[in-house]
């Protein structure tokens, strides 16, 4: 069963990722990105990270991709670009070789380092329907709000800074004297 889920979700992820880099139209690329993000969410569920899967769908597929689509529409760049011309000669070949080399290196590293992955944590509570359906959320909340509560507060500062900075960046400069 987990094999079936893994294969289906992997196909979703890889097809979506390839779609992002080969589709001419930016809107199509954004929609391929949605496919990839949903595949990742399925893989999260398969690995009993239910809360993260929900956050993945809400934040990534819901908010971030919509933001991308908004910007595409706002800037009016929603037309297909010509991918035939190559700005730098031979760049695609070199990029492909770099990509293949990266796959090879990372795969070698993962396979040769897989014996490092042994159980040494406190255990992950799995959410089982019926008895303790939100065990994953409870354990994650215990971790975030006790061990990492300072980092959690800092992320709220980060979000405020990001919002203020974006408003300053993206607003139209009218009048003089107002920087």
């Amino acid at each position, binding site marked *: 069963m987990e094999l079936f889920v893994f294969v289906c979700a992997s196909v979703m992820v890889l097809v979506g990722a390839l779609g992002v880099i080969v589709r001419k139209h930016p809107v199509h690329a954004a929609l391929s990105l949605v496919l990839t*993000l949903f595949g990742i969410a399925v893989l*999260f569920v398969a690995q009993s990270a239910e809360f993260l899967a929900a956050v993945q769908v809400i934040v990534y597929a819901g908010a971030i991709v919509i933001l991308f689509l908004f910007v595409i529409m706002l800037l009016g760049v929603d037309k297909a670009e010509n991918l035939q011309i190559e700005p730098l000669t031979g760049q695609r070949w070199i*990029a492909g070789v770099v990509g293949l080399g990266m796959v090879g290196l990372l795969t070698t590293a993962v396979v040769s380092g897989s014996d490092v992955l042994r159980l040494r944590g406190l255990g992950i509570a799995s959410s089982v329907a019926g008895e303790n359906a939100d065990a994953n959320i409870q354990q994650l909340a215990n971790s975030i709000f006790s061990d990492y509560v300072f980092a959690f507060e800092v992320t709220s500062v980060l979000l405020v800074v990001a919002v203020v900075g974006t408003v300053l960046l993206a607003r139209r400069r009218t009048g003089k004297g107002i920087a």
Partner: protein
Amino acid sequence: MFGLVVVPTPTWYLVLSAVLFSIGAVGVLVRRNPLVMFMCIELMLNAVNLTFVTVGRAMSDINGQAIVFFVMVVAAAEVVVGLGIIVSIMRRRSGVNVDDLTELKG
């Protein structure tokens, strides 16, 4: 059961996320539209998130999922700021090609 049941090991997930990361990196190298390059950066961030969850599960440690939570928050902030920069650049020039944006070149 059917005797031999193949269960995906953590290595499978890690190899998948390595492939996803490489696709994102190749996309950043190949594409010239800044929005699509941004999407490729999102691909790489998702590959890293998948790695964190997989390793956290293999080590039976909830901290792998906690850090993914923080990565998602930082990614959201990063997308907001990056798209703000792209909007403000695009407003004063019409092209959608990062090769034209060489004003900061020394």
